[in-house]
C-alpha cells in the first residue's frame, strides 16, 4: 500500500479549468486603474476618460492579436457566458428579424451549459435546436456535422476545447463545413485561449467567445469576436448607453479589461513554453497514476487534448470519496458551475460513460503555476487515497457477505 504523503502547507490547486489564479503580472498592470486612473472610458470629453479609453483600446488590440483578429472585431463582455449568450441569441434573433426563414441551430452534447441553455432558450422563440452526439473520444465527427447540415441551418456552435475533458475539436475544419453549407459558425474559446494557437482570420469562424479568468486574467471580463468581413450582425442581448458599437451596453470595467489584455499578451508570449512544461508535468502524473492505480482510464482523445487536462476514471473508488480523502488536493468531479451539483456529468455521459463510471471520474487541471512538487504530491496522494478507498470498499463488502 502506498503511504500517504505529508500534507502540503497550502492546498495544491489542480483545478485550472474551473478558474485560474490571476497572474501577479496581470494584477500589477491593473493596479493603477484601481487607483489613480479611474476615468470612465466613455467620458471622452475629458482627459481622464480619454486615458481610460486609450488603455481599453490597447487591451482590445492585445486580445485581438491573441486570437488572430482585428481589434475592431472584439467586443468586451462580462465573461464567456455572456459572450455565448450574445452570440447565439443575438445571431438567431437578428437573422429572424431580417426575415431569414431558417430556424435550425446545431450544437454539440458536450458544450458548456451556457451554450446548451442559450440554444434551448431560443426554442420558445420558434428556433429548432439540434444537439449532435460526439464520438467516444469526445470529438465531433465531421460527417455528423455534414449530415446535420443537409437541412438548411442558421447557426452552428462548437466549443474549441472541452472544459471537462480538454479535448480539442478541429474548429478550422468544422467551421469550413458549416460555411460551405451557408450556416454561421460560433465557437466557445473559453478553455482554448492560451492553450492552443488560435487564428480566427484563417479559420472561417463568425463568432467566438473568450473568458478572462480561464487564462490567468481577472473574473468579470471576457470578449466576443464578431467577424467584420463578411460582417456578422447581431441583436444585442441588452441595450443602454450604446457602448461596444451598440452590441454590449454598460460601462466598461477599465481595470479588468487592462488585466484581460495583459493576460492575453502573456498567454500568447508564453503559449509554447507553458504548453511544453505543462505537458511534461501531465505526462509524469499520468505515468505514475497508471503505474500505481491499475485499471485507471483516461477519458477523451489522448492526442487531440490540451496539455493541462487529465480526465480519469478510477477502477473502484468514487470521486467523492477520493476528494474527501485528499482535502489538500483541489480537483473536481466535472465542471464547476452550479455548486454542489452531484448529478453525473452530462459531458462524460455523452462520451459513453455510465453514471457509475462518471461518479468515479476526476478532472485534473494542470496550469501555469503548477510545480513539479505539486505533481509529486498529487500522484502520491491520489494513489494513497485510491488504495485506502479500495481497502475500505473491500472491508465493507467483506462485512456485507
Amino acid at each position, binding site marked *: 500500500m502506498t503511504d500517504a504523503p505529508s500534507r502540503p502547507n497550502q*492546498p495544491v*490547486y489542480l*483545478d485550472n479549468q*474551473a*478558474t*485560474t489564479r*490571476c497572474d501577479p503580472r496581470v494584477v500589477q498592470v491593473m493596479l493603477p486603474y*484601481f*487607483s*489613480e486612473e*479611474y*476615468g*470612465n472610458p*466613455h*467620458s*471622452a*470629453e*475629458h*482627459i*481622464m*476618460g480619454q486615458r481610460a479609453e486609450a488603455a481599453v483600446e490597447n487591451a482590445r488590440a492585445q486580445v485581438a492579436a491573441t486570437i488572430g483578429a482585428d481589434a475592431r472585431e472584439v467586443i468586451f463582455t*462580462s465573461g464567456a*457566458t*455572456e459572450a455565448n*449568450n450574445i452570440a447565439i441569441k443575438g445571431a438567431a434573433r437578428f437573422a429572424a428579424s431580417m426575415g431569414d426563414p431558417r430556424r435550425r441551430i446545431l450544437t454539440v452534447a458536450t458544450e*458548456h*451549459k*451556457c451554450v446548451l*441553455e*442559450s440554444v434551448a*432558450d431560443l426554442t420558445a422563440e420558434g428556433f429548432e435546436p439540434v444537439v449532435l452526439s460526439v464520438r467516444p473520444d469526445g470529438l465531433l465527427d465531421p460527417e455528423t456535422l455534414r449530415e446535420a447540415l443537409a437541412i438548411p441551418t442558421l447557426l452552428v456552435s462548437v466549443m474549441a476545447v472541452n472544459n471537462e475533458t480538454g479535448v480539442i475539436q478541429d474548429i478550422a475544419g468544422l467551421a469550413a463545413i458549416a460555411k460551405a453549407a451557408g450556416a454561421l459558425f460560433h465557437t466557445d474559446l473559453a478553455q482554448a485561449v492560451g492553450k492552443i494557437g488560435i487564428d480566427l482570420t484563417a479559420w472561417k469562424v463568425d463568432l467566438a467567445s473568450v473568458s478572462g479568468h480561464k487564462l490567468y486574467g*481577472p*473574473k*468579470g*471580463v471576457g470578449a466576443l469576436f464578431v467577424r467584420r468581413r463578411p460582417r456578422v450582425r447581431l441583436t444585442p*442581448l*441588452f*441595450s*443602454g*448607453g*450604446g457602448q461596444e458599437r*451598440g452590441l454590449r*451596453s*454598460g*460601462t*466598461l*470595467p*477599465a481595470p*479588468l479589461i487592462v488585466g484581460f489584455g495583459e493576460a492575453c499578451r502573456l498567454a500568447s508570449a508564453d503559449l509554447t513554453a507553458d504548453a511544453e512544461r505543462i505537458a511534461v508535468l501531465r505526462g509524469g502524473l499520468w505515468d505514475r497514476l497508471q503505474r500505481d492505480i491499475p485499471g485507471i482510464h483516461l477519458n477523451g482523445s489522448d492526442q487531440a487534448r490540451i496539455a493541462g487536462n487529465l480526465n480519469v476514471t478510477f477502477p473502484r473508488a468514487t470521486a467523492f470519496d477520493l*476528494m474527501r480523502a485528499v*482535502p*489538500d488536493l*483541489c*480537483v*473536481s*468531479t466535472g465542471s*464547476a*458551475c*452550479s*455548486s454542489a451539483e452531484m448529478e453525473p456529468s452530462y459531458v462524460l455521459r455523452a462520451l459513453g460513460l455510465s453514471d457509475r463510471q462518471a461518479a468515479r471520474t476526476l478532472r485534473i487541471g494542470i496550469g501555469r503555476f503548477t510545480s513539479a512538487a505539486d505533481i509529486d504530491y498529487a500522484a502520491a496522494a491520489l494513489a494513497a487515497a485510491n488504495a485506502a478507498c479500495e481497502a475500505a470498499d473491500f472491508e465493507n463488502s467483506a462485512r456485507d457477505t
Partner: protein
Amino acid sequence: MHETHYFDANASQKLCPAARDAILLAFEAVGNPSSVHRPGRTVRRIMEDARDVIANGFGLQSQDLVFTSGGTEADATAIHAMSVGRRLIISAIEHDAVRSAATGAVIVPVGRNGIADMEALETLLSDGNPSLVCLMLANNETGVVQPVEQAAALCRRYGALLHVDAVQAAGRIPVRLDLLGAHSLAISSHKLGGPAGVGALLLAPDAPFTAPLVSGGGQERGRRGGTPPVALIAGFAAAVLAGQAADQQRIATLRDAAERAALACGAVVCGDPEHRLPNTSCIALPGVAAGVQVIALDLEGIAVSAGAACSSGKVQTSHVLQAMGLGTLAGEAIRVSLPWNVMEADIDAFAIAYRRVADRLRPTLVQGHARS
C-alpha cells in the same frame, strides 16, 4: 498641464480605499466559487459575505440579491424577467438602459422640476391592466430624487410591478427596497465607489422572475449564468459599507458652494433643488452650448460632463432636460457631480475656472449685467 479636478462622479469615480483593499486581497484567493474544494469554498465565503453586506445594506435578504455585470444588465434583467404579459410604463427621464429595454413603453411625463408626474401615473394604472412600471430613484443628469414610495404605493394599489433604477441614488442617499415598497432595484458598484464590472439586481420576496437574461451554469440560483467576479464583488461590498459611513452633508455643502459660484456667473440650476442627491448639480449657462462649456472647463483642468457618459462622447441634447421642458437650456447644461473624495480646494478651482469660462464665452451677458 493642469492638475485635474474631477467632477464626473455620476459617470464613474475613484475606488474608495476599502474597496481597493478588498479587491486586491480577493485577487490573492484562487478558486471558482462554484467549486467544492477548499479554495472554492474560501472564495465562495468571500462572495457570500459580500452578498450579506450588500443585501442587508439595501434592506433585503441575501437570497434575493442577484449579482450582474452592472446597472445596465440589472435593469435589463429586471425588465426581461418581470415584464412578461405586462404593459411597460416608464418615466420620461429613465436611463437609456431602461429606455432601450422597454421598447414601446408608455411614458410618464415629468414637470419642469424634473419630478415624475404621479397623477399621470395613477391615471395610466387606473385601467387595471397588468403593468411593469420603471421609475428611477434619482436621475443621473439632474440628481433629482423621484417619489418612488408614492409610485410603489400606486403600483401596489393597482396590482402593477415597480422596478427602480437606483444606480445613482445608492451610496448617496439611504436606499432600502423594503421601505420603498418596490419590487426590484438595480444597483451599480462603480457609481458608489466600488469597482466597475459588477452590479446587483435586488428582488422583493414577492417579485416574479420568469427567466434569466444571461443563461448559463445555474449560478445565482439560476437567475444569472457565468462565474461571478469575486474580487469585484468583495470591492462592491466594501464600498457599500464605506458609503454608509460617508458624510453626505459635507458633499452637499461643497456642491452648494460650487453651485453658488456658477449662479453668480449667470448660470441656472436645472431640477428641483430641494429634492436632489447631495453630490449632483445640473447647471445651464444660457447661450453657451454644453459641449463648448465642457471642453473649455477641461482645458482649465475641470472634468465635468454634458449629460450621461455612455456611448462615445458624442454630445446629444439630453432627453432628460428636454422632457423637463427646458427648451434651448437643455443643450446648454453641464452636469457637475462630486466624487466621494472631493476637497474644498477642488471647489475653489471650479469656481475660478467657471468664472473664466463664463466670462470668455458669455461676454454679452456679463456686459448686460453690468449695465442693469
